[in-house]
C-alpha cells in the first residue's frame, strides 16, 4: 500500500494536448474516484498511472519513488479494465495466478493466493471454468481476483461496472466497497456513474477537458460545488440553472423573483442553481406552469416553467396536477447556489 | 588423383535408365579413381528450361543431354567443349564408326561438339485388327504390292475412322510439336527452311501440298484425329501411329493385345524417305573439369558402352546397326522390321528440323499454325504468314 502523488502531469498525443497539468494527492489507503464527462481524460490519467501511457510532462510518484519511466510491471499496481480483459484461453484459476507466475512465486504459494482470492470473491466453484462460461458479474469478480492476488500497492479501476446491468451493478458496487474496506489498498476508480462516485469514494476528483474542476468528499461536492460545471455534473437529475441577477427582493429572472441566499452584492448578474429535489410544494409560493408530470411511484418528476426557464422538480408527493395547470412551489434559500455568469465560479 | 564429381543432366528419371548409366559411371570410376558421376533427372517437359536456368545461375552441369531441336543453339553458342581431338586420341574409340549423317547436327566448322547419343527413326505402328475390321488392306499387303504410299495409307486411316475408331495419329504432335509433322512432309520433299537455315520455305509449293494433304486428312476425311482430341494408338483405339520405334515397349500385352505391325513411313510424291529424332550429349566448356567430362563422354560412347546403351537408345555406330545387335535389345521386333525400319532409317534418315533460336521459332510457328487447324483454313495464306513472322528470326 502506498500513497500516490501526481504533480503537474501532462499528456499530449502528438500536437493534441489532452491533460493539462494535473495535481492530485492520494493518501495511503484512500479510495479516489475520477469522474467527468466522456473524453475528459479519465482513462488517460489512469493509464498513465498504470504505465500504459507515457507521461509527457510532470511526475507520478507511487509510495516514495518516481515511476515515470518504470514499466507497468515494475510499478506494483493492479488494474481492472472496463471489459475485464480476462485471458479467454485460460481458466479462472490461471487468469488469477498468471501475474504471479512471472514473479518467481512458487506453485504452492500461487495456489494459496488464488484460493484466498477466490474465497473472498466467492469464486471457488468456478476456478476451472473459462471466462466464456461465466456470467458478467462472475467475470467482473475474476478481474478483481486477478488484481488482488498480487497484493499490489495500488488498485486501478477503469469503469469496471459499466458492462453490467443495473441490478448487478448495485451488487458489485457493494462488493468492491467491502473489498476495499477489508484490504484497505489505495484505489483509483474511474466511473461516469453518479451513484458509484457518491457511494464509493472517500474523495472524488471531477475532471473536465483535461483539467481538475474540483477535488473533495462526495457530500462536499454535492453541497458546495466549486463551479457551475461540478454543480451540473454531480446529482441526478441535474441541478436546474436559471439566468438573471441578484435584486433587492431576491433573484430576478425573466418573469419571476426567487429566494436568494445572502452575501452576493445586489445587482450582480448570476446563475441561480437549485437541485430538482430541493423544490417543495407550497400552494401560495412561486407559481410554476406544469409542462410534464412523470409519476415514478415513490417520487414524481415534474417539468415546469419558472418565469421563462423550464426546470425539473422532483417531489416525494404524488402530484395530481396535469400539464397546463399551475403548481405552487417554494425554495429554501439555503439550498440555492449562485454562480458567476461568466466564469461559472461559485459566488457564495 | 584429385576428387572430381561430374554432374550430367538427363531428362529421364526411369530407374532402368539410371541403373544403366550408373553402371557405366562405376566403370569409369574404376578407371579413374576419385572421379564420380551423378545423373540429375530434369522433367522432360521443362528440360531445356531448367537446364538454361542452371546455366544462367552459373551452375551449368559438366555434361548434358541435348535435344535435336536446340542442337543448333548449343553447338553454335560456344558453351560446349570440342570433342574430336579427345575422341580421336581415345584408344579403341573408332570415331569413324559413327555415321556421318548422325554427327552432322552436332558439328560446327568441322568440330564435333556433342555425341549423337540416341538416334531414333520414325516409323509407323499399325493395328491390323482395326484395319481388317474396316475391310481395308493392311500396310503389309500394300508393301508387298509395292503400293505403300501416303494416298493409300491415309485411305486406310480414313476407312478405319469411318468405323468410329481413329485413323492415323502423329504421336506427340498434339497440334503443338509441329516439327514432328516432318515425318509426313518429308514425303513431299518439304522443309521449313533452307539447308543453311536462312530462308523460310514454309510457303513453298511442297510444304503447301503436304500441309493441304494433312489438312484434308484431318478435316475432310477424318483420317487423323482433330485438334483437342487426345487418343492413343497403344490403347488400341487407332489404326496407325507415326512414332519412334523405341515406343514398341508401349504395345499392350495380354487381354488388350492386338495384332500389330511396324512398317516404314509410306512414300510420298517425292519418293521414299525416312526421318529420325536425335539427342546428343555434350560437355560444357566453362566448368573446372572439362577434360575429365570429355573423357567420360568418350568412355560413355565407346563401342562397348554404346552396345549397352543400344537397348534403350538406338546407336549411331555403323558396327552396331544390324538386325543382330539391335534384335538382342529389341526382342519385340522381327529381324525384317529391324532391317527395313531401323537400320535403313538410321542410315538414310533426315533429322527433325532444328535451328538456332529454335524455341522461339517453334513458339511463333506454333501460334501461326493454330490458324491452320481450322476446317476452313486457307493453307497457302497461313503458311505465307508463318514465313512473314519467322523470316526476321532466321
Amino acid at each position, binding site marked *: 500500500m502506498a500513497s500516490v502523488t501526481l*504533480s503537474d502531469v501532462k499528456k499530449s498525443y502528438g500536437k493534441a494536448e489532452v491533460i493539462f497539468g494535473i495535481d492530485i494527492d492520494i493518501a495511503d489507503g484512500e479510495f479516489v474516484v475520477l469522474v467527468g464527462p466522456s473524453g475528459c481524460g479519465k482513462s488517460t490519467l489512469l493509464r498513465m498511472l498504470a504505465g500504459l501511457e507515457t507521461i509527457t510532462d510532470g511526475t507520478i510518484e507511487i509510495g516514495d519513488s518516481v515511476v515515470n*519511466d518504470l514499466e507497468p510491471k515494475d510499478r506494483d499496481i493492479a488494474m481492472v479494465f472496463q471489459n475485464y480483459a480476462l485471458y479467454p484461453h485460460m481458466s479462472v484459476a490461471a487468469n488469477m495466478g498468471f501475474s504471479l507466475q512471472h514473479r518467481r512465486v512458487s506453485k504452492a504459494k500461487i495456489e494459496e493466493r488464488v484460493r484466498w482470492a477466490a474465497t473472498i470473491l466467492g469464486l471457488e466453484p468456478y476456478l476451472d471454468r473459462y471466462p466464456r462460461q461465466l456470467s458478467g458479474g462472475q467475470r467482473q469478480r475474476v478481474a478483481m481476483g486477478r488484481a488482488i492476488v498480487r497484493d499490489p500497492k495500488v488498485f486501478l479501476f477503469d469503469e469496471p461496472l459499466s458492462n453490467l446491468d443495473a441490478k448487478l451493478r448495485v451488487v458489485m458496487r457493494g462488493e468492491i466497497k467491502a473489498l476495499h474496506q477489508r484490504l484497505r489498498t489505495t484505489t483509483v476508480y474511474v466511473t461516469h456513474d453518479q451513484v458509484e462516485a457518491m457511494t464509493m469514494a472517500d474523495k472524488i476528483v471531477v475532471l473536465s477537458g483535461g483539467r481538475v474542476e474540483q477535488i473533495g468528499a462526495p457530500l462536499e461536492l454535492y453541497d458546495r460545488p466549486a463551479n457551475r460545471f461540478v454543480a451540473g455534473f454531480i446529482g441526478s437529475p441535474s441541478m436546474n440553472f436559471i439566468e438573471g441577477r441578484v435584486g433587492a427582493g431576491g433573484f430576478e429572472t425573466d418573469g419571476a423573483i426567487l429566494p436568494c441566499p445572502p452575501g452576493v452584492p445586489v445587482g450582480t448578474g448570476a446563475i441561480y442553481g437549485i437541485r430538482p429535489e430541493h423544490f417543495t410544494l407550497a400552494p401560495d409560493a412561486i407559481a410554476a406552469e406544469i409542462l410534464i408530470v412523470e409519476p415514478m411511484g415513490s417520487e414524481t418528476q415534474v417539468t415546469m416553467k419558472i418565469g421563462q426557464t423550464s426546470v425539473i422538480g422532483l417531489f416525494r408527493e404524488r402530484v395530481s396536477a396535469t400539464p397546463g395547470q399551475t403548481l405552487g412551489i417554494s425554495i429554501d434559500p439555503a439550498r440555492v447556489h449562485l454562480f458567476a455568469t461568466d466564469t461559472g465560479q461559485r459566488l457564495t | 588423383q584429385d576428387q572430381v564429381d561430374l554432374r550430367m543432366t538427363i531428362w529421364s528419371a526411369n530407374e532402368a535408365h539410371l541403373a544403366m548409366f550408373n553402371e557405366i559411371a562405376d566403370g569409369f570410376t574404376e578407371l579413374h579413381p576419385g572421379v564420380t558421376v551423378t545423373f540429375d533427372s530434369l522433367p522432360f517437359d521443362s528440360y531445356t528450361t531448367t537446364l538454361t536456368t542452371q546455366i544462367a545461375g552459373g551452375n551449368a552441369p559438366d555434361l548434358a543431354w541435348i535435344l535435336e531441336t536446340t542442337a543448333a543453339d548449343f553447338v553454335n553458342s560456344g558453351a560446349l567443349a570440342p570433342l574430336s581431338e579427345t575422341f580421336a586420341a581415345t584408344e579403341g574409340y573408332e570415331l569413324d564408326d559413327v555415321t556421318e549423317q548422325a554427327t552432322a547436327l552436332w558439328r560446327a566448322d568441322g568440330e564435333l561438339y556433342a555425341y549423337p547419343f540416341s538416334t531414333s527413326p520414325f516409323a509407323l505402328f499399325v493395328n491390323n485388327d482395326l484395319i481388317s475390321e474396316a475391310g481395308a488392306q493392311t500396310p503389309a499387303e500394300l508393301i508387298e504390292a509395292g503400293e505403300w504410299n501416303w494416298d493409300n495409307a491415309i485411305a486406310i486411316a480414313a476407312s478405319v475412322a469411318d468405323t468410329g475408331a481413329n485413323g492415323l495419329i502423329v504421336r506427340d504432335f498434339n497440334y503443338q510439336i509441329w516439327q514432328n509433322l516432318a515425318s509426313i512432309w518429308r514425303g513431299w520433299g518439304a522443309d521449313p527452311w533452307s539447308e543453311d537455315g536462312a530462308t523460310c520455305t514454309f510457303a513453298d509449293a511442297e510444304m503447301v501440298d503436304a500441309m493441304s494433304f494433312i489438312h484434308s486428312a484431318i478435316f475432310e476425311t477424318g483420317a487423323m484425329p482433330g485438334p*483437342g482430341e487426345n487418343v492413343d494408338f497403344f490403347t488400341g483405339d487407332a489404326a496407325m501411329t507415326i512414332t519412334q520405334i523405341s515406343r514398341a515397349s508401349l504395345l499392350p500385352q495380354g487381354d488388350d493385345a492386338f495384332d500389330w505391325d511396324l512398317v516404314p513411313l509410306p512414300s510420298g510424291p517425292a519418293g521414299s524417305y525416312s526421318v529420325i529424332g536425335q539427342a546428343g550429349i555434350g560437355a560444357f566448356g566453362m566448368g573446372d573439369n572439362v577434360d575429365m567430362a570429355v573423357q567420360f563422354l568418350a568412355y560413355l560412347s565407346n563401342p562397348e558402352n554404346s552396345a549397352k546403351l543400344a537397348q534403350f537408345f538406338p546407336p549411331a555406330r555403323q558396327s552396331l546397326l544390324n538386325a543382330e545387335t539391335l534384335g538382342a535389345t529389341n526382342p519385340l521386333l522381327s529381324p525384317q522390321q529391324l532391317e527395313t525400319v531401323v537400320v535403313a532409317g538410321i542410315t538414310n534418315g533426315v533429322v527433325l528440323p532444328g535451328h538456332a533460336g529454335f524455341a522461339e521459332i517453334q513458339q511463333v510457328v506454333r501460334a501461326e499454325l493454330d490458324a491452320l487447324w481450322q476446317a476452313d483454313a486457307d493453307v497457302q495464306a497461313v503458311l505465307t504468314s508463318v514465313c512473314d513472322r519467322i523470316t526476321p528470326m532466321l
Partner: protein
Amino acid sequence: MTVAAKSSSPPARKRPFWTMERRDSLAGYLFIAPQMIGITVFVLIPLGLVFWYSLHEWNVLAQTFRFQGLANYQTLLSDPGLPQVLAATGIFSVGLVIFNMSLALLLAVLLDQKLKGIAVYRTLFFSPVVVSLVAWTIVWGFLLQNNGGINALLATFGIEGPNWLRHPTTAMISVIVVQVFKNVGLNMVLFLAALQGVPRELYEAARVDGTPVFKQFTRITLPMISPTVLLTSIITIVGSLQVFAQIAVLTQGGPGMSTTVLVYYLYQQAFQFHKFGYGATLSILLFVIVAVLTFIQWQMRRKLVFYEN
C-alpha cells in the same frame, strides 16, 4: 481538499536512454527482423538484380552479358507480340475477377442459408482449393478436349460443344473457368464470413420497411460487405496476374497468342528463348502493372467502399 498547490516543482530529472518507448521500439524491430531480413534477401535484392539484368543483353547459352542501357525497354515498346499479350492479360484478369467474384458471391449467398447439410456443400465447394493445381489442371485438360467429358455431357443434352481449347474465345473462357473453379472457394468463404457479419437487424429493418429481397441485396448486403469485396478483388487481381501453371498445362498460350498472358510470355522469353535480359524487362513491366493496379484499387476504396469507422 482542493487542488494541491505545489510549492516547488521537483528537480528536473535526467531521463534514462532506454525509455519505455525506446525499449518497445527495439522489441518491434526484433520482432520484424527475421522477415525484414528475408524480404531484403529474397525479394528486394532479387528485384534489384532483375532490374539490373533488364539493362543488359543476356543470352545464357551464348554466355553474353552486355550492358546496353534501356535498349530492352525500347524493344518492349516495339515488340509486336506485346499488344496481344497485354490484351490477353487484361481479358484474362478482368474475366477472372468478374467471374470469380460473382460466383463467390452467389455461392456465399446460397450457403448463407440455414439449411440442413449446408456444411457438406460448403466443404465440397471449397475442396478444389486443396487439390494440387497441377493435378487439377491436368484433369481439366482431359475434360476440355474436343472428345472429353464436357462435350460428352453436352452431347447428352443434344448440344455439340465447341473445341474448347482450340478456339481463341473458348480457350480463354476455359482457362478462366478452370482457374475460377479451383480457387473460388477461398473468396466464397471470405464472403460468407462477411455476409454473416452483416447485422441481422438491418435485414429485419428492411423487411419492416418493405424492401424487396433483391433490393435488400443490392442496397444493403453489397455495400455492407464492400470492404471484403475490395480486399478479395485485390488479392484475386494480383493472383490472376501471376497465373502460370494453368496456362502452361492447358493451352501453352494458344491458340495463336490468345492465352499468352504476361507471366507466361516472360517465362517464354527468359527460359525458353534464353533472353534473360528481355525477360527481366518484362518482369519489371509485370511488377509495375501489379503495383499500379493495386494502388489504384486501394485508392478507389474511398469512393466505392463503405467503411464503418
